[in-house]
Each structure stands twice: as structure tokens, then as C-alpha cells.
């Protein structure tokens, strides 16, 4: 998304909170103000915050489900092709391919594929790893992993206006609003 000239070099505003309550309320306010490019930062999961922010439910489960099915298929096909097709041998007079004996490994591959997809999917959807981010430049933001809660509104948001946005944030946060530079 391209940025308009007036606030070039500005990433956005950062408001901080001390209490979960204020934080939740603030989040709903920002949400209701109609901002889209904003985020809330907390050192731990706050239940209800998703709703307060109006975050849409992630597609991750579907990814994992598909990956799981793939794993199962791979598990079965691997055993069938290697033992019954490519290099069949007679073992204990047993059939070359029989499902029961192949269940355990198929199960394991299912789990393996699904689990890996869960982590990788999460990271990809989160655009992680992203080792640099403008917010990291802010000293006080470091407490986002400790004991403080933040709301950041990005300059790229269509509704973003240096004055109104600042006012909104000041109205909901007891603390001064910080500007976040967007380092080139």
C-alpha cells in the first residue's frame, strides 16, 4: 500500500496501557472508529481481545486439516508402493499389503505433517520471521513482552489523520502518545 506524502517517515502512533480493562475498552474504541491497519500488543493472550479488535478467525485449521490428510495418504502409499509394488517379498506368509499393519505408520505421518503445517502455517500467516520492525525502535515498546499493553495505529491506514488519530488515542490512554518513525 502506497503512502501519501504528508506523513512520510511516520510509521504510526503508539498508545500504552497498564490495565487489561482499559486496554480491552481502548481496543473496542479503535475498532469502532473503523481503523483497519492497527494492532494491539500484549505480553500474553488476553481473552476477549480478538472480539474487542474484531479479528477474523484464522484459516489455519483448514491448512492443518489438508496437511493431515496428505500425511495419511503419504503414509499409506509409501508402505503400499515399497512393500507391495516396488520390491515385494514374502514375510511370514502374510499378504503383501494389508491395512492393519500399516495403520500405525500412517497415523504417525498424519500427525507429523499436520503438526509441522501448524507451526509453519502460523508463522507464514503471521509473516514471521520478521526480524526488523519499526516498533522495535521504540524503547518503551520493549515492555510489550513484560507487563505493558500497547495499541499501534499505522500511518498507512486510510482513516489515519495525524491529529484525529492522536486525539482518539489520547482520549482512551492515560499516557502520552508516541510517534513511531518509519526508518527507511
Amino acid at each position: 500500500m502506497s503512502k501519501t506524502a504528508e506523513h512520510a517517515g511516520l510509521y504510526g502512533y503508539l498508545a500504552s496501557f497498564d490495565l487489561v480493562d482499559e486496554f480491552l475498552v481502548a481496543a473496542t474504541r479503535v475498532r469502532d472508529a473503523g481503523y483497519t491497519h492497527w494492532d494491539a500488543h500484549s505480553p500474553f493472550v488476553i481473552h476477549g481481545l480478538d472480539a474487542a479488535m474484531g479479528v477474523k478467525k484464522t484459516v489455519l485449521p483448514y491448512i492443518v486439516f489438508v496437511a493431515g490428510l496428505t500425511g495419511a495418504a503419504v503414509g499409506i502409499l509409501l508402505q503400499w508402493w515399497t512393500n507391495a509394488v516396488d520390491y515385494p517379498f514374502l514375510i511370514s506368509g502374510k499378504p503383501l499389503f494389508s491395512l492393519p499393519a500399516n495403520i500405525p505408520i500412517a497415523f504417525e505421518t498424519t500427525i507429523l505433517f499436520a503438526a509441522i503445517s501448524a507451526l509453519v502455517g502460523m508463522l507464514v500467516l503471521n509473516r514471521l520471521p520478521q526480524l526488523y520492525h519499526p516498533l522495535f525502535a521504540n524503547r518503551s515498546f520493549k515492555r510489550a513482552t513484560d507487563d505493558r499493553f500497547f495499541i499501534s495505529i499505522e500511518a498507512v491506514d486510510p482513516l489515519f489523520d495525524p491529529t484525529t488519530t492522536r486525539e482518539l488515542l489520547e482520549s482512551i490512554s492515560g499516557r502520552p502518545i508516541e510517534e513511531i518513525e518509519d526508518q527507511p
Partner: protein
Amino acid sequence: MSSMNHHNGMAYWRSLDELEQTAEFREAVGREFPNDDWDRLPPATRRQFLKVMGASLALAGLTACRWPKEEIVPFAHRPEGRTPGVPQRFATSMEIDGVALGMLVTSFDGRPIKAEGNPLHPDSLGALSAVAQAEILQLYDPDRSRRLLLREGGQQYVKDWNEFESLAGGLFSGAGAAVLAGAFSSPTLGALRERFLTAHPEARWYEYEPISRDNEREGTRLVFGSMVRIHPHLGGAEVVACFDADPLFDHPAALRLVREFAAARNPESGTGGRLYVGESGFSLTGVRADHRVAVASSRVPALLAAVANSLVAEHGLELPAAAAGFAGATDHSATDDERHFVDLLAADLMTHRSRSVVLVGPRQAPAVHALAAVLNHALGATGSTITYTADPSPDRPSHLEAISDLARRIQDDEIETLLILGGNPAYDAPADLDFADLLAGVPVSIHLSLYDDETSKLCTWHLPASHSLESWGDGAAWDGTLSLRQPLIEPLYGGRSAIEVLAIAADDGPKSGYELVRESLSGRSGIPISGDFWRRALRDGVVGQSAWETVAPPTDPAGLASAVDGLRELLEVGRPTTEHPELVLVPDAKVFDGRFANNGWLQELPDAITKITWDNALLISPATARDIGVSDSEVASVEARGATLDLPVCVVPGMARNCAAVALGYGRAAAGQVGNGVGVDTYRFRTTAAPGILSGVAIRGTGRSYELATTQDHFAIDTIGFSERNLRVADLVRETSLDAYLENPEIIHEQEHHPPLISLWKDHEYEGEQWGMAIDLNACIGCNACIVACQAENNIPVVGRQQVLNQREMQWIRLDRYFKTAPGVTPDEVDDAEIVFQPMTCVQCENAPCEQVCPVAATQHTTDGLNAMVYNRCIGTRYCSNNCPYKVRRFNFFNYHKDLADTTKMQFNPDVTVRSRGVMEKCTFCVQRIEAVRIAARNDNRPIADGEIMPACAQTCPAEAITFGNLNDRSSDVSRSREEHRSYAALAELNIRPRTHYLARVNNPVDGMPSSVEGAGDHGKESG
């Protein structure tokens, strides 16, 4: 010269594949018998000589049996009728204690790799004993002596044959020369002896063997006035009575006797002789007995006398007048068991006159043999179940007399020069003679021997002997059949045979064994040796129709009288007591008199009864052990005849009360790396007065314990295991009595109760040839021959005592031995037990439990139904072994081939993979033999005939207990034997479908009920 000879021997071996280099090869041939001075041979002989011996070098004996055609050819041009890589077999023979045993030796590119029996040989009939098969390993033994040694004034000099020859001429002239030979049957050696004695009239000739049948010989002299040789025939015998005798194992013709015995006891044909055995400890014959009583060896005469007594008194048997005294001596101290035994036997002997035979063991005194001969005579056995031939050397004094006389003369400094042909008197002469010390005092003593052994080290000269597989020779079978010996390979270490050395001593000039044998043969048979005759003789290994005439000697009253007196004396001997038990010295089943002590195969071969390897032990019965106060694996100090030895105790049921037995042949000091210090030298107990049976010895426990390396659990284990073992045997090794079997053939299946055996999946269809095996437990006598055959055929390593202690022995065949005692009795209540054998090796299950658990498919099924083991695929998880209910898989815990000598490696069968470290291995029904036959059959585009494939174990089994063949062929022997009522599969209830079935053992006791089991309990209670 010696160095060259030495080099020559080695160079030959390194250059097997370099032989294309014609020049070298010719040179090698030129020096073929390196120490011979060619120019002293007449040209004609020499050319023949060159041809034959050259050939025997190049083609390792192959050519010897067709010498007239042979010419020396470089390997560049393949010789006529020979395909490199295709093994060939040659007939030859070996001699133990003066009896020749015929062998067929497989030679692979000039390397003899396996010895099998010669079907044409009367004492072999195609089978071969464990000991004889192990000869191959002895041939390649790196410890064999490689050079002539002269020991003077504490110094030791390396000499060569020329030096010895040049000096030998003068040595034997004049008084004081003597030769000490072993027992021999070789006509050539006999002829040379005459030649020697004519050349040196004053020289003396002695023959000594520690183990012999002299008592039997002497016994016949007492009865018949002249010595005769006894030939039992068990084929037609309805009743066989053995008194301390083991005709099925320690008899020179044992292989033949086993064959007859097994064939005669065929329940399907309803026949079945009855075997009575009275002995001091379990012999293999005793194991198969229908009625067995354990009596001290010193009481065996009384037992036999009681039988005679009962026969005469109760059954009115007529004895010759002079022998009447044999009867009438009643033994009042007899136990109930003994009386019962005597009554049954006497009655049976009477009812089966002329179809019964009484046999007495070699350790019993001549008088006892005399009594047996008289009984056989009176019972009309002579001519039917027993025949006689004249003794080959009737005027030979007994071995003990000979060695004693020699010792006396040495003591009186009458012996200047002593030539010892083979043997090891310094080790095995009777202890009271101090032969070793005496020998050291002889001015010139020459010992011809395979090893620089105890005797050699005391002699001034040591001469390396050539192995019987390296030399020409001949000998006579037990029945006199002339058996020839041809070299399979050039002497590895430049040794020479006894006849060659004796020829030198006889001033007959150094002649080749080849010449000597041909000379004596032509001299004997009178006929000039035509090419055909010689060729056939060599090919067959025997000269047809050359057995001795049987004789029907008349009884000699004078002798009988002295025999009667002799027996009376024996009857005076009281029973052994706990304070003064009896000790019986027995020849070892493996190292024999000690001569095979350096043979790893034999040392590691589990003893049939005790399963002990790498040791000899003091065998006593549980009750005796309790009375004396010693326990299993405790070291007991045994004092007898002035010597005191510490021996580990092995408690084994079936020994007579207060009677102990220990094997001779151990505790060698100079046997070689393998045999040195293994076990205890019990010859120190052995005196001329009491060579076999020592009464009044003292046995004391020392409290120290010594772990015996056994391949199976000991008899005495914890109570739970003991009772469970007793429970399981009945189902694993099934047996019944002949009467019960004939009445209800299904009897052995009645104890099976398990749910129907059905699979979860559709069973695999096995098309085409499907190999299977049937093992007849009624025929198997537990002689261990199959184990050695398998070891030789399949390159099975020897792992040593420590690894056997760790239960890592490698033999693929385990001869399972079970003691059967009455159910519910504890080890403490048992003194006697029945023993059953079950050869156990991979049974090639169709639903093999080992296969399904192998993660890398290293063991899987072949199309012909074998449970194949893919060595190069195995990564060694050992899961297959864990899941094998028979525990017949063997694991290479180390690289057991790492330290093998190059010569030992020459024994390897090139058709079988040598397994590396970390790999599982097991029996595969000798798949290499199956494939060889299959290829041959395919080449001739014909089906494989039944019986054409012979696994090594089946091939060598004297009892023909093992049948192998195609299960899909309804008419094959194996299919038919599996359809017999006696056929069952061990652990069939696991639904693993073993391809090996067993045929139940059928005993033939009088009362029709299996005697021993109930008996055992009773004995126990009485004695316990």
C-alpha cells in the same frame, strides 16, 4: 634345504592363483617332494612319481585316482575333466586305534574342505563320526609342527630331512634300538615292520594305545584259546544286552552298528529290538535303552554273572562244562532294580535265543568278556547276531604289557635309540610308569608327530608328521576290508608319514608313501597292480571282498577255567561306598585320548549328556553328590592311586550310586593354542593295575566353585524351572511304547489340545518345490555328528570357552537333551532319569515369527519355502532371535574370524558366506547344496530327484534319522514320513507351521509301558 622346503610349502599356498606362471609352476613341481633326492630313484619310477605327485600338487589328489592319464599341466590350460570352482570328492581313509575308517573328502580347487563318510566302506556306509569329520580342521591347524627339531643339551636346532636320513641309517643297527608305534592295521606298515626287524634283528617293536579293546581280545583268548575279533550284528538282534558297553558310540564299527540298530527299530514295520543296558554312567547306548540299570562298573561283572546264573538256574540254559562255574555265583547284595533288570533280561534272552546278543565294554576285565562270549555261544548268537574273525596280530602283547615292558627296559638302560611313530606316551602312558621321566633318559629318541607335543619335547628328535589327508597309506576296517588312503593335498608343512619314516629306519631308503603302498599292495595281493585295479581301489577307497574270513572257534576248557577264577575274584569286590566311591576313567567323546585336544570344533562340541564344552568334569548322580556333600559346579578334590586332582563337579542323573566318572584326554600341556590347559589331565589317575575302574577313591568338596561352559541349562536348577521343564518335555519330545503305539497309532497326538490353527489372512499358496525335513527321534542317538557336519559345511566359527559361558555358542544345530523324571518331583528327589534327544535347528516356519519383526527384511521367505537369511542385508537388531520360539538363531557378537590363521581359512566352504560381525545367522537347510543340485538338474533339464539333495546333517547321520525333500511331491520320503502317525511338529500350537517335523520316539520295554519315567521316580525315592 629345510628353509627351501619351508618356503616351498608356503609359496605353494600363496600361489594358488599365480600358478599360470608356468616357469614357477614347473619349478615347484620339480621340487614337489622337496626332501627327496631325485637321482636315487630309477628313471621310470621317477617319471611316474613326478606325474602323480606333480598332479597331486596341481590338482590336489584329484589326479591321484587316475594317475596313468595324468600329465603336469599349467593351469593356463585347464586340465582334462576338471572345472575350476566345481568341488570334487575323493575316497580316502583315516585310522584311529588301528582301525581304518573310510571317508569321502570334498576338495575345492585343491583344498580339502569337508570330510564325509564313504558309502562303500563297511564301517562308514556313508556316515562319519564327529571326530572323524573334524580331521579337516586338524589338517589346517596352524599349531602343527613345521620343521624337524633336534634337542641336545638344552639347545634346540632346526634340521631337515636329509640330515635325519643321513644319520638314521646307523641309529637302529645293534641292540638297544626300539620302535614304539601306535596300534595300526596298515599292511604297508606291517610289511615295513618286518623289513625293519629283518634289517635290525636286535631291534624291538612295541605298540601302545591308551584306549584299546585289549580286554575283549584277551577275553576271547580265554574262551577260544586264540584271540578273535568280535563283530556284533544288531540288525537281526531282538535282544541286545550291553554291560558297560557302548556299541552305538565307542565301538570301531559304531557307525555300522547304529545304522543296523536304527533300521531294526522301525515301529511302522512293527519290529523293534529290545535294548538292555547295565552301566555306571549314561552312554549313548544307555540313553536309547528300553531297560537300563545304573550299577558301578566294578559291579557290572556281578550283574552279568547274575544273568548267567538266572539263565542256567531258572531257564535251564546249557553252559559248556568248563564254564559251568560262571553260574552259581549269586549276588545277595543286588538291589531290587538290579534283580528286576536281571529277571527281565534273562527271560528275554531265553525267549529270543540266537536272535539276542550280549556285549561287554572295553573297560571290563577279560573274564567278563569271556563270560559274555560263553553266553553268546550258549544262546546261539554265534553266527547270527555275532561273528568272529581271527585277530589280525594275534601274537601282539596287550598295549599295557608293551608299554610296561618298554618302560622296564628303558629303566635298565637297555634302550639306546627309541623311534616313536605317532602317539603321545609322555602324556598318556600309565602314571605308575613315569614314562616321561624315563623317556628323557633315552640317549636317542625320535618322535614322529603332528605336533611338537609333550613327548616330542622330551625326545632328542622331533619329526613333523604328515596328516592322514596329506599322505599315502592304507589300513583295514574293523572287518578287515582293505581301505586305501590318498593325499588330498601336498603336505602343508613338509611332514612325512609313519611308513615313509619307517622305510628310512629300515634302511629301505627314502621312498615315497605312494611307492610303499603300491609295493605292499602288489606284494600282498600277489597280483601285479594293473591300472584298473589300482584305479578302482583308489576311486572306491576300499578293495572289494578284502574282508577277513569269519571263523567259528571251538571253546578252550583250560582258558575257561582261568576265566571262571578271574570272574570269581571280580565278584569279591564290594560295592563302592560314600566314603570310598568308585571312579571310572572314560575316553572322551570329543578329544578321544587327547589327540584331538587342539581341535576347536571338538573342544566346543557340547558333550551329548552333560552339554559341557571346553572341559572335563567329575560326573556324579544327584544322590551321590548329596551324600558326599558336593554340589553342581563345585570344585571337588579327588584322590586316587596317590594322585590328587581338583575337578569341577557336574551333577547328572543316571550315574550309579557312589560312582563317579571323568573323561581322559584333557589338561594337555603342549597340545597347541587351542588345547593347552583345557580341563584336567586325568591320566595321572591311570595306572597299569587299574586303567579304567578305580575303586576306593576319595572325593571331597573344596567349597570353591567353577563355572562349566555348558550350552544348555544344568540338570539342577531352581524348583520352578525344574518342574516346568519336566512338564514341557512330554509335549516337545513325544514318546510312547511300541505296544501302546501298535495298539493306538494316534497315541502321540492325544496330548495335543489347542484351538484350531487358523490365520487372520488368506494363507499363502506354496507352489513348486517346497523343502521340508523330518527327524526321527526314534533313530537319533545324539552322537553329535550332524553338529560338526554343519559346522564344517557352513563356516561356523568357534567362539571359545568364555563366549560359550556367555551363551553365545554358534553351532546352528542344537542337540537338545532333556532329562525325563516323574512329574512333580524336585531335583533333590531325583537320582536317575530318562534322557531324550531332540536335534533342534531352524525349522523354517511358513508363518515365521522372525520374518515379520525384521525391520529391514533381512530374513524372508524364498519361493521354495525356505526361511532365508540375507546376511548382507542384516543390521543385527536381534529381534528375530528374540521372537524365535525355538531360539535357533545365532548372532555374531564379535568378528569371530578376525584372528584366524591363513591355513584355517583354507577350510572355508566357498559356497557359503563367511558372516561378518553384527549379523544374525542360522540354518538354511544347506541352501547352497539345494542350489547346486537345482543348477545341475536345470542343466540336464530334468526334475530334481527325491533324495538328491542332502543337507550336511542328513548326509552324515549314521542313523539316517534326518529325511529331507520336497513336500509338494506326495511320493517323496519326507512327505511320506510326515504322514506317519508318529509325525508331529514341536510348538505347532503357535500356528507357525514349521517345515521340520519330528517322528516320535518309540521305546520297547517289556511291560509295554515307558519304563524309565516311572522308574526314575522310584529310583529317586529309594536312593534319595
